[in-house]
């Protein structure tokens, strides 16, 4: 890892796991010793050459990294402005960026001598990645998934079952990602000594936000190298979608100190920010404490968490990773949002123009990519294509099949 300067935006979190006021370790005492153990083991692991070597081998030979940086010529032409590059993390094994983090954490679990794994999942991508890695390492795997998400992400549920994972349907709350995380944490509290919890996004108590970010930063590190090779300069714009925000941080983090690079995160605006049905915690939420960290949340005046809504199960979360909250506070990253409907158009557009069926999550990013690119002729834009859309077909097709030219 390169030297980090004193003023760097990359040096967070502090020793208490804080990014500005965000982050921290807001967990029950039962979990506290365990979280400290994870932190210590992680700090040791990333200094351990054999751990890093093993991680690199799995990244290359199992995940299939580096993922290509692809010049999307037809999208570029369509929007008529900036050159659009797609970071093809949807080509990873299991079809999304989630596996980058899972391989890192499962190697850590192995190092800690834990061979029972739990995970929460929304869209099912993190669940599939975790079930995959557990199959690979011969570990026991239990995935907590909202009952509603099980319904709208059937193919992923079947994949997880085939891979040997046990699915625990979560019916508390609205049966989505937030509730799956609650139940995973409850299970972990009850099985603190035996299980390792692989959190799927850059959120949760310290050290998870840092750890997940570090494992995902390979996306941005590769992208930086690749764009320098192709264009001999840094990009002008980065775009990625945000639920918890791990794919976005993965792309953004290595560029944070490059002030000339403009960075845009895209939240899910659901049925619109003015409606009660969205998942845009930065654009429409306020700081609060949930799932072990302080961060922007969708909450009412009494501090009760409000259910998020997005057509995309992976963005359907009322919070966001604490580092994003901090980057929002200091203004380094601009956070915009895309509605359900806009993401569906982008979903179809990308399929038709590039022959790439995007997941609904990056389809949100693609909508903003189009708007930004149109105004920036001569500039270079990189968007993280963080997942592929096969999993979304059953829920998307009935919605777009109505349109006349389908």
């Amino acid at each position: 890892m390169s030297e980090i300067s004193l003023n760097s935006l990359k040096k967070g979190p502090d020793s208490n796991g804080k990014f500005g006021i965000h982050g921290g370790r807001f967990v029950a005492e039962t979990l506290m010793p365990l979280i400290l153990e994870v932190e210590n083991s992680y700090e040791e692991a990333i200094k351990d050459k054999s751990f890093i070597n093993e991680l690199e081998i799995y990244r290359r030979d199992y995940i299939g990294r580096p993922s290509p940086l692809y010049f999307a010529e037809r999208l570029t032409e369509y929007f008529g402005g900036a050159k659009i590059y797609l970071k093809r993390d949807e080509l990873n094994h299991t079809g999304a960026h989630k596996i980058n983090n899972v391989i890192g954490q499962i190697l850590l679990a192995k190092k800690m001598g834990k061979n029972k794994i739990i995970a929460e999942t929304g869209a099912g991508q993190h669940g599939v990645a975790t079930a995959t890695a557990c199959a690979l390492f011969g570990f026991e795997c239990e995935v907590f998934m909202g009952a509603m998400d099980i319904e709208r992400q059937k193919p992923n549920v079947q994949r997880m079952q085939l891979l040997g994972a046990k699915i625990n349907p979560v019916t508390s709350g609205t049966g989505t990602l937030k509730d799956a995380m609650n139940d995973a944490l409850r299970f972990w509290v009850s099985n603190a000594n035996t299980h390792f919890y692989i959190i799927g996004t850059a959120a949760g108590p310290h050290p998870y936000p840092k750890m997940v970010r570090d494992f995902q930063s390979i996306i941005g590190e590769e992208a930086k190298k690749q764009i320098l090779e192709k264009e001999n300069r840094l990009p002008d714009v980065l775009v990625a979608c945000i639920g918890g925000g791990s794919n976005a941080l993965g792309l953004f983090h290595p560029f944070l100190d490059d002030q000339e690079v403009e960075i845009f995160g895209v939240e899910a605006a659901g049925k619109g920010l003015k409606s009660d049905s969205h998942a845009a915690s930065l654009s429409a939420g306020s700081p609060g404490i949930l799932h072990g960290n302080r961060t922007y949340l969708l909450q009412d005046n009494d501090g009760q968490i409000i259910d998020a809504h997005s057509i995309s199960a992976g963005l359907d979360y009322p919070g966001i990773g604490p580092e994003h909250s901090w980057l929002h506070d200091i203004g380094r990253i601009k956070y915009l949002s895309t509605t359900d409907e806009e993401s569906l158009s982008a979903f179809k557009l990308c399929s038709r123009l590039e022959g790439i069926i995007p997941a609904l999550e990056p389809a949100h990013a693609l909508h903003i990519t189009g708007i930004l690119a149109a105004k920036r002729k001569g500039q270079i834009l990189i968007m993280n294509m963080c997942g592929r859309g096969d999993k979304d077909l059953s829920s998307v097709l009935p919605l777009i099949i109505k349109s006349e030219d389908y």
Partner: protein
Amino acid sequence: MNRIKKTFNQLKNNNKKAVGIFLTAGDPDFESCLNLIQKLPEKDVDFIEIGMPFSDPMADGPSIQLSSQRALKSGMNLIKCLSLVENFRKKNNHTPIILMGYYNPIYKFGKEKFIENCLSCGVDGLIIVDLPPEEDDEFYIEAERNKLSIIRLVTPTTDRKRLDKILSNATGFVYYVSITGITGTRAPNLEDVSTNLKKITSVTDLPVIIGFGIKSPSQASSMADISDGIVVGSAVVDLIKSSLDNDDNLTKNTLDSCLDFISKVSKSVKHN
């Protein structure tokens, strides 16, 4: 002398163990909850824990999750929760009241304002489940400066080093979480609890109370025998639930069945 200290001193002098009862504020509604807590001291309950309902109670089992949902549905919030205590204090000035819950509603309400309100309404102590000692600067230090007791949780996963850290700022009493788990799920193992309790009492003079998995009068009694007292929560909350009608409204049965059970717990603990 504050109410918590006074209560535990009296119990010690009489060679009795403490009975604590947990209820969720506003479950199933404000009036019936107030009615119930007002009657607890008559049933030999020594202190009352009132749960401040939260939408995402991470350390609670299904019983308290559901009771929180019922309470929130009935319109419960922090202001009303404090008003519940204020109303209780109109007729009772000796039974300690501990508010228990999660940090976000307090953070949203405003820390200073919350502390002020606790003091003026007659709250004696706080248990905030998701504030471990690592986050002491966040709220606890300010609360203690204002003489609110901060009840610390010690769990089976707490090692010796952490125990010192936790107890260094503890006041009121120590709450021993008798199971590695969430509220109202598994049953505690007497032997394990006893071993851990000895470790705690060897380093603190504060009373140690056991809770999280105690469901029956006999369990309460055996746990109380090895400690300074017990808390029963989920079992009472379950009784409330099972006595409600289909629309989660109170029935004639609710108060009686709860008070009857609580009185059995007290008798068993006090060996009356």
